[in-house]
């Protein structure tokens, strides 16, 4: 890891909203006591090196009128690469993980999130994945939200 304390301070702050003023990084420079040019340079460095995926709006899928779900599939060991490639090929798929229960067997091992412009499109895509893979896709859409907001403790 090659991040210095300055980078960590910037990274921590950047997880909250960028100020909506003409010179947002100048505003941050006052908050963090780091000069504006350094902030800009370090952010560019962290984007270039892949520590920051992007500095951009985090879209509220549902508020934008889109439908989303968490889906789970039981994929046989020898088909994992093939099936993950099919699932990942859909642009609405934002996450896809192979998961294993700790000290416990769970009925599914591949977990992905998918969004689509509406419910009909969402279901037809999930059905298409079932048809292409011959596997059952379990859809677990959110029925109630208690928290969403990935901010990490940086230390």
């Amino acid at each position, binding site marked *: *890891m090659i*991040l210095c304390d300055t980078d960590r301070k910037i*990274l921590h702050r*950047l*997880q*909250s909203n*960028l100020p*909506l*003023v*003409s010179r*947002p990084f100048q505003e941050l420079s006052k908050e963090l006591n780091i000069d504006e040019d350094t902030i*800009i340079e370090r*952010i*560019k460095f962290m*984007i270039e090196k*892949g*520590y*920051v*995926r*992007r*500095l*951009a*709006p*985090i*879209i*509220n*899928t549902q*508020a*934008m009128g*889109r439908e989303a779900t*968490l889906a789970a599939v039981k994929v046989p060991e020898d088909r994992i690469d093939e099936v*993950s490639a099919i699932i*990942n090929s859909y*642009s609405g*798929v*934002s*996450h*896809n*993980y*192979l*998961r*294993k*229960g*700790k000290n*416990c067997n*769970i009925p599914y091992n*591949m977990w992905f999130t998918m969004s689509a412009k509406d419910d009909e499109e969402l279901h037809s895509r999930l059905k298409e994945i079932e048809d292409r893979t011959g596997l059952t896709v*379990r859809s*677990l*859409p*959110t*029925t*109630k*939200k*208690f*928290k*969403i907001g*990935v901010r*990490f*403790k940086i230390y």
Partner: protein
Amino acid sequence: MTTKKEDIDVQLIKHIQEGLPVTKTPYKDIGQALGMSEDEVIQRLKKLLEFGKIRRLAASIAHRKIGINANAMCVWKVPKERVDEVGKIMAGFEEVTHCYERPTYPDWQHNVFTMIHGYTDAECEAVIQAIKEKTGLTDYVILYSEKEFKKVGVRI
């Protein structure tokens, strides 16, 4: 219903969803690319945040790359009448980044999902232990990610 105003907002989001320009005046630069004033860009983004269409205008961090390697999805079997109470308790933990209720199926009875991020598995499990103590829940499973196949932000 689609109005002209929404079209411009969608156009604005599409233009910046891969990343804002990291310059001294990012909003002015966005405005120049889209043919609107700096002030219009700022006002539109303010409204999008205010109405919750954008959750945040912020950095998405490659958490594994900075050492946050543990990512536990802990799923809980919670009686229907306790979901609200328990969901609020779970959401109160800083390490719990997401907390949702989801439907059950005959082969899937765990209805409350929590995502816990930490630097180590032990750190995640300490949080789970604390949730157990605070809620009295005992029926749960921890699902660790073994492999990340895809992780991108939502785009429109």
